């Protein structure tokens, strides 16, 4: 008995293959975008984990000196007191224009590293003595190894796939030379087995801090917010895709009502019908889901290199640009497809289950939708209010996203009501019969199109919101770069001694030589970089302060106060007048807060003497040079020649800005790609809605045709209708997008990155987006309109055909 039922139900798809395709594409798009984001997140997280495993990070407690590097004597003292610790020296190294991390470990004491095991088990294991004695060996992943081999003056390179990207792993003795930090240790790893009777740390090395493995700031926690951002985007895309599924399934059910009634009349139970339909939906979900997985995998593969670049650029987090297929990812994607399809079909199934056996086929009582629209709109308003309430009362990134989610969903729900209000207003003002009819007809079409229009609203709002955020950020960032990079030339000496020589040599030739000195402290809030400055008008004139107290510079330079960056200020809630404790015995009043973008860590600025007092040992290798801009090139060349400095050691302001902006732009490539995709999906949703409404359109247009309008005129009106609805939606999307932008800039950014950005408006972008929307609506309506234009009159006449 089930066989014929299935056959009857499936025959529908044979006649409506376009509908079937739409449904599958809807599921595939939803699953694909979501899975792509998941794959990117999973891949990035796997990269962090791999890097941790490859470097044995996060497994053991660590000892650090909050004021700077640990001298080797301290290590020996700890060892001779029985402490089983392993030394690590790490730091950045610039090689042919890219910064790589050098991690030098004491290969003798450090726990087993996969990379070392890998090379020792290779076909041609290196002579171990070569690893430990000069010149040593560098281990790097294949692509970095290739770059390194092209460099002169480096030790021989060994290739290992078990080294994280952009990292050189080597013995600490080799790293000392490479990083020019003889006798220095960045941190000590506390090994698991400690002997009996070890004296407490406070007795041997009181200046060292023990940081437990769980408290260590790793890539995964630094990048959490970035991934949450991506996930939110993925969910938005998924939701937009589900609109398509919902619309298509609803239509297919409506069209099969007659068939289902017949089947029931023939004795098929509703229970059996529901089961068969559920099975049908499951099969469709799995097929669409599989297509989506393929799409998602390709998409993730295309986006991952940019994501990897972002994560490395923004957080220094190690991420490969390579995708690998994980079975659990595929399963999760299919589960999402299935859950999404059933969710989107739930309403239709429910209505089907409650359909009385003898329900009339008659015209849909669409006018009853008006109350429905009002009620839905009311729910929407409640959601919006709830979103704001949560956003303003609860802290945290998740609350921020809940707020944005509430506003977006709420706005989408109020859309049909607002559109219907607008259409009524237009209808009242319309003069001609055709115009009157168009407004009235759009009103009538609204319930069928509203889901697609909601999808469009969300996509447009997201576009405006995210676009405004990115552009505001960029504008702020550019302005900030201008303030922050005021010196015409920046130079980095190879060591402190050369630094001194350079400063002396420059002094008589230029307006000012501003030393850039900093040291990393382990603050209770995480790593904190402490900078020292000398008194110069440059800072007073340009430094980007966003909050300050009286005589801010005088007080800082007198050693009475400290400037902190916005991230630190917001994280700890310190503002001018509060006190910042840097380390034991050093607490200073906060005199001002400055913006500091593209940097996840806290930063503070004190006077130069203060820096040496609080944390002695900062390098004096970097300088900003003030001089007449036209002399920049000349001085740059002279510096390189005089001190035999590599190109990268002397950089002009313009080049530095260009580089910073390039990194910035890369950061948002993924965001904009997802943005465009979401808009594309929304456009597709409109197309599918129009196509599914097609069969209901004929009884509406046939009488008008009979009364004397040509098919071409009607087709034009169809297009006009779609464009008008899209335009109205776009107009409503603008304020929503701006609210979203505000939420992103003032709430999400603060929680995710620690900075609040001023909002700028970009009307030109809106016009562009508006035109794009109209084009999308035009394109979506073009196909049904074309069909109408070419429709044989006989098909229209069928509407009038008498039922006898």
């Amino acid at each position, binding site marked *: 008995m089930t066989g014929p039922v299935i056959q009857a139900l499936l025959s529908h798809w044979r006649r409506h293959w376009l509908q079937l395709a739409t449904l599958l594409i809807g599921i595939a798009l939803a699953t694909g975008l979501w899975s792509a984001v998941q794959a990117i997140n999973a891949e990035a997280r796997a990269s962090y984990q791999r890097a941790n495993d490859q470097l044995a990070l996060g497994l053991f407690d660590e000892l650090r000196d909050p004021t700077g590097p640990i001298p080797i004597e301290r290590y020996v003292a700890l060892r001779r007191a029985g402490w089983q610790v392993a030394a690590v020296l790490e730091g950045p190294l610039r090689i042919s224009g890219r910064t790589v991390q050098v991690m030098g470990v004491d290969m003798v004491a450090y726990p087993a590293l996969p990379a070392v095991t890998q090379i020792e088990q290779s076909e041609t294991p290196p002579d171990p003595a070569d690893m430990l004695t000069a010149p040593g060996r560098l281990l790097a992943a294949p692509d970095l190894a290739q770059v390194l081999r092209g460099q002169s003056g480096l030790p021989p390179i060994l290739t290992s796939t078990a080294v994280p990207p952009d990292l050189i792993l080597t013995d600490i003795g080799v790293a000392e030379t490479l990083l020019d930090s003889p006798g220095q240790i960045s941190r000590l790893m506390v090994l698991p087995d400690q002997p009996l009777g070890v004296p407490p740390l406070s007795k041997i090395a009181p200046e060292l801090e023990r940081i437990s493995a769980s408290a260590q700031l790793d890539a995964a926690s630094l990048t959490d917010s970035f991934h949450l951002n991506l996930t939110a985007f993925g969910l938005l895309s998924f939701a937009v895709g589900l609109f398509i599924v919902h619309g298509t399934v609803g239509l297919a059910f409506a069209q099969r009502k007659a068939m289902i009634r017949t089947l029931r009349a023939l004795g098929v139970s509703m229970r059996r019908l529901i089961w068969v339909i559920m099975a049908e939906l499951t099969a469709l979900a799995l097929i669409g889901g599989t297509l989506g997985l393929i799409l998602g995998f390709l998409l993730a593969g295309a986006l991952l290199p940019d994501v990897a670049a972002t994560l490395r650029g923004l957080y220094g987090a190690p991420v490969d640009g390579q995708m690998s297929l994980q079975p659990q990812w595929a399963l999760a994607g299919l589960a999402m497809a299935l859950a999404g399809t059933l969710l989107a079909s739930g309403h239709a199934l429910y209505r089907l289950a409650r359909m009385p056996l003898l329900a009339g086929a008659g015209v849909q009582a669409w*006018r009853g939708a008006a109350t429905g629209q009002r009620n839905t709109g009311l729910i929407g308003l409640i959601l919006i209010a709830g979103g704001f309430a949560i956003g303003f009362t609860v802290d945290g990134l998740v609350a921020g996203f809940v707020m944005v989610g509430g506003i977006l969903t709420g706005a989408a729900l109020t859309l049909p009501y607002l559109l219907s209000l607008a259409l009524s207003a237009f209808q009242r003002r319309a003069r001609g*019969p055709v115009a009157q009819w168009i407004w*009235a007809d759009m009103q009538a079409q609204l319930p069928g199109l509203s889901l697609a229009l909601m999808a469009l609203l969300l996509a447009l709002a997201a576009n405006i919101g995210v676009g405004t955020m990115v552009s505001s950020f960029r504008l702020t960032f550019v302005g900030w770069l201008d303030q922050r990079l005021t010196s015409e030339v920046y130079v980095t000496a190879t060591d402190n001694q050369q630094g001194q020589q350079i400063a002396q040599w420059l002094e008589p030739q230029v307006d000012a030589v501003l030393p850039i000195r900093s040291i990393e402290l382990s603050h209770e809030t995480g790593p904190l970089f402490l900078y020292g400055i000398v008194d110069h008008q440059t800072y007073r004139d340009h430094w980007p302060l966003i909050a300050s107290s009286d005589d801010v510079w005088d007080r800082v330079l007198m050693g009475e106060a400290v400037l902190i960056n916005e991230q630190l200020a917001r994280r700890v809630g310190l503002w001018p007048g509060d006190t910042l404790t840097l380390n034991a015995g050093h607490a200073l009043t906060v005199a001002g807060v400055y913006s500091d973008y593209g940097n996840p860590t806290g930063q503070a600025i004190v006077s130069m003497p203060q820096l040496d007092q609080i944390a002695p040992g900062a390098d004096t290798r970097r300088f900003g040079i003030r001089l007449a801009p036209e002399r920049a090139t000349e001085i740059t060349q002279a510096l390189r020649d005089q001190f035999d400095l590599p190109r990268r050691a002397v950089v002009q302001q313009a080049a530095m800005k260009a580089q910073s902006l390039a990194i910035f732009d890369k950061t948002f490539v993924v965001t904009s790609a997802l943005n465009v995709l979401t808009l594309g999906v929304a456009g597709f949703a409109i197309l599918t809605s129009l196509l599914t409404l097609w069969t209901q359109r004929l009884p509406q247009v046939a009488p008008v045709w009979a*009364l004397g309008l040509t098919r071409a005129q009607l087709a034009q009106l169809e297009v006009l209708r779609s464009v008008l609805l899209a335009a109205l939606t776009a107009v409503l999307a603008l304020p929503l997008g701006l609210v979203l932008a505000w939420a992103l800039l003032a709430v999400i950014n603060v929680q995710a990155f620690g900075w609040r950005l001023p909002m700028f408006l970009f009307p030109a972008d809106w016009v562009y987006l508006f035109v794009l929307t109209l084009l999308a609506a035009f394109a979506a309506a073009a196909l049904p309109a074309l069909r109408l234009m070419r429709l044989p009159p006989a098909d229209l*006449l069928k509407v009038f055909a008498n039922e006898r």
Partner: protein
Amino acid sequence: MLLNIDKVQKSYPGGRPVLRDVSLTLDQGQTLALTGESGSGKSTLLNLAAALDSFDGGEITLDGTALSSLDDGGRAALRRQSVSLVFQQFNLIPSLTVAQNLSFHARLANREDTNWTAQLAERLGLSDLLTRYPENLSGGQQQRVAIGRAMAPRPKLLLADEPTGNLDETASATVLDLMLSLVVETGAALLLVTHSPDIAARLDRRAHLTGGHIA
């Protein structure tokens, strides 16, 4: 002569002929009942006369215009200006109110006469229903709106396809009476397709279509 159907031929898309050399004439102010079996081509002939569909051979002349010479736009203009239609299924525009439906055709034809429309509404008993939508009307009420819509532009020719086919007896009688009296009053010609001999008997002339010919 208002309508001259001369040896018109029409086949279904499959090639099966429906009308073979049908000829018929209708003068200004005349009423004609077109009867015939189910599937005899009555409605097809009516659609051809209304310039809703094209024919394969012969000629139809409406108010001096040869229909075969018209393109899509010309036929639409003819429908707008010269004929009015009443269908069995009423075919009101569901998104417009009764008032809007009533005046719709006249406004399309640019011949709106608000007094006349108001008078029609009054005569057809629709005055209290003007702000309603078609879905809230009974079949008889809907058909009265359709007749009003058709008469509002004061057409020269009214084409009606089983106008009472979907109505019960009482409603049927009312609708027919109203329609006929309005036709007489405005001096319009009427071509009415029906299978009912009683209705046919109330018109001036009667033509019977069988086997694709007028008997």
